[in-house]
């Protein structure tokens, strides 16, 4: 009697929650763009448009089909599995990097004495539990949680307003173009690009879900959210925003009077924890899903725990130290990610369009 499919709003909730997980990555952009960091989500969105168009067109061509099924339809059986395997590698790395960030955050700010390993294990344990419950459950649960997160976010923003100094944003747009290009590239690949994971869920949605429209809504909400986060950081920290590792948290710690309405960073830490957990969780899930598709397994349930252990272990060794994640993220990751968030989808789209045109020559170019 209960629905086994995701509805449109559940899908959008999952998407928004996933995108809210970028809150731990704000330093990637802030450290480069400084006081113009709040403009970067807009530019990043523009740079992300090609991928969004991919989602839209592919979504229309293959309604209710997940990313991996689309790969098989477009590239054939073997080709599809190869492409899916490439996505698997991509999403595995996404999960790992997000996991590293989250473990570092927990170990530095929340549990100071605990070794990072333990934090990492706890995070994957929570992720495993959620995945065992299934994505439908997670989708159902995310609706109320997202609303709660957005409300808390608004509260912490409004509460910080008295201490904001609008002068910190001036002068705007005077830095060298390279700065903007670089940071919007980072934004489009890391912040928005990882959102490609949401395309995998297209197969689980009910009939009425229009993938392109939903992705657009998700990305627009994400853009507003990111602008607001960066604004808050810049308006509170000013030039210090380029030096801190977690500008959003430091900004939160500064706000609040020292009496009763203080320590609102606890609300903020809550948001950061849950949103980044969700990001880890979803990317973990889609990589599992990819493995299942590649190897034609009936169910991925058996793989969950080994994969979780792998991610926890890999996250310790993938980078020399968690501090490295910043350098890696700013220099190497955007280009690797761009292969998967831009090149591969474009390639898929082109092949799909060609195939469509070849199949229906009399219809001309209409798809």
């Amino acid at each position, binding site marked *: 009697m209960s629905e086994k499919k995701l509805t449109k709003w559940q899908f959008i909730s999952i998407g928004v929650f996933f995108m809210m997980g970028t809150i731990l990555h704000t330093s990637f952009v802030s450290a480069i763009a400084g006081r113009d960091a709040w403009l970067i989500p807009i530019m990043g969105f523009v740079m992300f448009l090609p991928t969004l168009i991919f989602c839209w067109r592919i979504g229309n061509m293959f309604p209710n089909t997940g990313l991996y099924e689309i790969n098989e339809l477009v590239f054939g059986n073997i080709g599809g599995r190869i492409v899916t395997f490439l996505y698997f590698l991509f999403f595995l790395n996404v999960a790992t990097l997000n996991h590293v960030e989250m473990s570092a955050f927990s170990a530095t700010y929340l549990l*100071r004495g605990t070794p990072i390993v333990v934090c990492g294990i706890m995070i994957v344990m929570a992720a495993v539990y959620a995945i065992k419950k299934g994505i439908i459950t997670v989708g159902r649960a995310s609706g109320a949680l997202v609303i709660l997160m957005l409300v808390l976010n608004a509260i912490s923003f409004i509460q910080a307003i008295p201490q904001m100094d609008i002068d910190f944003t001036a002068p705007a747009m005077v830095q060298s173009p390279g700065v903007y290009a670089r940071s919007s590239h980072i934004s489009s690949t890391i912040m928005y690009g990882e959102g490609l994971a949401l395309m995998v869920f297209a197969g689980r949605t009910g009939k009425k879900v229009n993938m392109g429209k939903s992705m657009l809504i998700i990305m627009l909400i994400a853009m507003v959210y990111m602008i607001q986060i960066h604004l808050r950081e810049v308006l509170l920290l000013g030039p210090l925003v380029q030096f801190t590792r977690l500008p959003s948290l430091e900004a939160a710690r500064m706000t609040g009077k020292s009496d009763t309405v203080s320590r609102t960073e606890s609300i903020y830490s809550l948001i950061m924890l849950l949103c980044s957990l969700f990001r880890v969780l979803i990317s973990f899930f889609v990589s599992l899903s990819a493995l299942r598709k590649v190897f034609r397994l009936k169910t991925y349930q058996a793989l969950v725990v080994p994969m979780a252990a792998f991610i926890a272990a890999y996250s310790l060794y993938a980078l020399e130290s968690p501090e490295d994640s910043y350098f890696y993220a700013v220099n190497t990751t955007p280009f690797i990610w761009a292969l998967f968030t831009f090149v591969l989808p474009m390639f898929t789209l082109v092949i799909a369009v060609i195939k469509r045109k070849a199949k229906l020559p009399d219809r001309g170019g209409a798809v």
Partner: protein
Amino acid sequence: MKKTASILLALCMPFLLSGCWSSEEITTLAIVMGIGVDAAADGEYEVTVQIAQPSNLKFMSGGDNQDAYFNASSTGIGIQQQMHQFETELSREIYNGHMEMIVIGKEAAEGGLEQIMDYFYRESEARFNIPIVIADGKASDLLDVELKLERLPVSRLAGMLSTNRVDMVVRKITMDDFLRNAVSNSSATLPIIEQLEEGALETKGVAVFDKYKMVGELDQEQARSMLILTNKYGGGIATIELPDNGVFTFEITKSSASVKPECENGELSVNAEVYLEFRVSDVSEIGELYSDEARHNAEKMVNAAMFERLADVITRSRELNADVFDFADIIYCRYPRESESSIKNWDEEFRNLPVSISVTSKMYSSGAVLKNIQ
């Protein structure tokens, strides 16, 4: 079922067997309320921490003679080292989460604050919005002042800086304010607190910094003028000496300054327009104040006096080569391209920056008196 149970048990082992790492019983913490840093011989630092005694601090605690705190001092090279030293001595862990103030001795400030600031910046327990003061003398003395109404010396110090006070010539500067200035082209200023005899405390002016090193001081009047110019002055009482040894005391109720940069043919300059509203507090001889003419006279006097003081503070800042007015940022915001090269050389350019000031003041009421009582 058995397998699940054993896996779960295995996962729980690390938590249960090795104890919890970050769990700290509150009785094992030494709650640091304030820190004082003084310069010691050989480039070392003498660090004093003020640690709270919770049992004497809580709401219904014992008599007045019980100390709610105690100070511990230690000398060494880095601050982190001293903290470990304290932990060994006190057999408790130092906990900075509730720190309320940082006091720095004048000598230490003159030596440069990079190391101290770096320590606080990196550690995640203390917050950024803690006020910093410079002690005219030794910080450890200031942390031991006599207590009148408060229970902790740092509370007394912090209370002095509270921005709720109507008459202030120094402003509370927090750590992030200081850091923001230190990393940019402006100069940071920190209030100086001096301990007079009989346990009285007084704010003596502000210390001026060039990046992290203290290079000079501004006295009370100069500090006030600086606040006026940077549009941060809330109000207060000022006096003018009259030519015939009289005194004209007035209360500035509102002060706003609009500082505009100008660029003519590549020449940068700054134009400051200051607007004051004041009220007469007491006057020795100025004639009857309710006439228009008298009011204009009063306003003119105030204009002239304030102009002199503003000019004085600008001269002083040029002497110290410290841009305490944030002119660098103001110019850069408005003319980023034209000022780029000047900003890079701001250390020298600041001296040559033409600044023009104009002061307008308006007198609002002469108190509750229409005519002088004489």
